[in-house]
């Protein structure tokens, strides 16, 4: 059997990019239908999946096949007809591969939205054309802004139920723009769609000639994501040290990790933190050989010119551009656990590959994520609350602000008794 490759055609898939997006909407906004439509019209649904969904629809007594059932994963959800957790979906066009973090819209599931948003390049926010901008729209947009999702696409859905009216679309767009101007959001687009009928999702609508913009799929295929990573500040958190200790690689010592940001090259002057030792990059190694430069989000091993003590939790940075080591950390925190923060309790804190203990010294305020109001009186933090806190850590963490760096600007808190991840924080 011919198990080897000679020359094959690389075009068409080997130059595809990856776009991660999250979807948010209220119950009944048609979010699952929209995802179902994207998958269906881009021909990413298999026959046996469709058959299964058709069968379930029939069992429920529905007239049409309910595309929303494609995205409902767990038994409870299928029974209740709601999404209860983050589910990941995949589809591809010749241009891009897409990862969808599908998060539920209910009030009590802020934590899932935050989770889905943490890795996204883009947020799809669904608005029901009949209802316009409502509290949940604001809530989702504020979370997208807090999590620094670079692109927001507002899908004004159910246009078929407002007679495909341009006026309705313009009114919602105007309302949204006036609200979003208060947020830290860089790129917002608006698309009038009907997920149920398929207007402007994959195919252009015949009913809305007044709309001159692109369809949703075209937008997702063409968003500029090249600048979504930070290529300026060199940060390399060390995951582990590779020491083969065999004859061939007797003295080999490679620091393995994933580039958080910046561009590293052999010969670069670097500093290892927290020790402060300086050296130069000797080589950047991969299984496929040495490479001339490494940038986020590549996984590599770095060898240094000098034999210095480096281990997990250390960070290799450019000597002239360092993060701020700090034991007093202010962060916007989303509380993820049933059990709220206990007064002066200690938690394990993880920042990149580094572990420490942390105490919540002060809760500065709770953020009302519908109005942006800062409540300095109410310090009773519960699951799904977002608040600004001051943390004191047992050792200095090598932090950047989250606005500047999503990797070195984020932390999680872990309860030592249950080992559960109880909070996620963005460093201010």
């Amino acid at each position, binding site marked *: 059997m011919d198990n080897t490759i000679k020359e094959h055609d690389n075009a068409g*898939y080997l130059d*595809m990019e990856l776009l991660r997006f999250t979807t948010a909407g209220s119950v009944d906004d048609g979010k699952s239908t929209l995802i179902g439509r994207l998958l269906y019209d881009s021909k990413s649904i298999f026959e046996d999946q469709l058959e299964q969904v058709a069968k379930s629809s029939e069992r429920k007594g529905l007239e049409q096949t309910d595309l929303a059932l494609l995205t409902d994963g767990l*038994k409870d959800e299928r029974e209740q007809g709601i999404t209860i957790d983050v589910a990941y*979906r995949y589809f591809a066009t010749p241009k891009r591969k897409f990862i969808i973090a599908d998060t539920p819209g209910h009030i009590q599931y802020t934590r899932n939205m935050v989770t889905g948003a943490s890795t996204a390049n883009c947020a799809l926010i669904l608005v029901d054309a009949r209802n316009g901008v409502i509290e949940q729209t604001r809530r989702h947009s504020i979370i997208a802004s807090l999590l620094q999702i670079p692109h927001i696409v507002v899908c004004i859905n159910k246009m078929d139920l407002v007679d495909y009216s341009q006026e309705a679309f313009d009114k919602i767009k105007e309302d949204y723009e006036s609200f979003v101007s208060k947020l830290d959001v860089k790129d917002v687009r608006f698309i009038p769609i009907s997920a149920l009928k398929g207007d402007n999702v994959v195919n252009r609508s015949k009913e809305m000639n007044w709309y001159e913009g692109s369809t949703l799929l075209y937008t997702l295929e063409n968003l500029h994501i090249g600048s979504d990573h930070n290529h300026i500040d060199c940060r390399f958190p060390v995951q*582990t040290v590779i020491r083969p200790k065999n004859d061939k690689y007797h003295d080999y010592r490679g620091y393995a990790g994933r580039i958080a940001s910046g561009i590293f090259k052999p010969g670069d002057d670097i500093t290892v933190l927290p020790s402060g030792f300086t050296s130069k990059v000797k080589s950047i190694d991969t299984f496929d050989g040495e490479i001339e430069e490494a*940038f986020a*989000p590549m996984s590599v091993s770095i060898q240094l010119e000098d034999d210095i003590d480096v281990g997990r939790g250390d960070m290799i940075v450019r000597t002239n551009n360092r993060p701020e080591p700090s034991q007093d950390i202010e962060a916007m925190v989303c509380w993820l656990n049933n059990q709220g923060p206990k007064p002066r309790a200690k938690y394990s804190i993880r920042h990149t590959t580094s572990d420490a203990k942390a105490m919540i010294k002060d809760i500065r305020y709770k953020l009302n994520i519908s109005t942006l109001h800062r409540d300095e009186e109410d310090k009773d933090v519960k699951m799904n609350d977002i608040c600004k806190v001051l943390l004191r850590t047992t050792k200095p963490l090598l932090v950047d602000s989250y606005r500047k760096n999503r990797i070195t600007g984020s932390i999680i808190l872990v309860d030592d008794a249950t080992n559960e991840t109880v909070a996620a924080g963005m460093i201010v």
Partner: protein
Amino acid sequence: MQYNLTHLKELEAESIYVLREVFAQFENPAILFSGGKDSIVVTHLARKAFHPAKIPFPLVHIDTGHNFPETIKFRDDLVDEIGAKLIVGSVQKSIDEGAASEEKGKNANRNAIQTITLLDTIETNQFDACIGGARRDEEKARAKERFFSHRDEFGQWDPKNQRPELWNIFNGKHHHGEHFRVFPLSNWTEMDVWQYILAENIKIPSLYFAHDRQVIRRSNTWLPISDFIQIDESEEVVTKKIRFRTLGDITITGGDESDADTLEKIVNEVASARQTERGNREDDKRSETSMEDRKKEGYF
């Protein structure tokens, strides 16, 4: 210079990061190796992650005893080539010891009772992390899995009480006796796996390539003839040119008619496929929630 990775390179970088986190966060991790393409890709990625050192994880094979001989040969050759340690958990042994009992009837298989052997092997070897090749695109219950998926001391999965996973910070903290399942290929699709096998020229068992084989038609698929299958009088044994899209126990792995005998042809075939790859797996057809139910109990 464009500082942008292709989707395959980005997926590879993510998986390598996950594998290194497993090594750093756990005392005694292992790779669950079935001999299927996904666990082969995981093993390949582990080589990349720790190069030039050897893979720091043993390969664990849960052997139902109902194997394709090709799979076992492939497994043994690979273990030799990369110098890894192989640990085999035997379903037959679990049956002989009375820990598991065999299903009865025509469609009987050892799929469900594998879980018993798997959990027993994990406990005996005190693995605290088991790395698997499962992907979220395979099946709807798997779409909700985390990269680091917590299992209680009974090996059970509680899908409603999973740890949130944010950014690339993975929390592998656990109490004694609990373990994690780790899925480095979470974000890969079947197509990604095949494109990667092609791009990296990764060796895979010959069963994936189109070949002539004696089969019977059952439940809309071509089931291979073996010593472990009961054939009715009404069923006719025929020779067909088929290939397998997934590999499992020989009694439940159905083949598709195909002429794809090279990786390039397989990639093209996958690209135009209208059925999911697990569409031919008897184990998934038993009910709408059979994967979710098995996973809660501790299945792969």
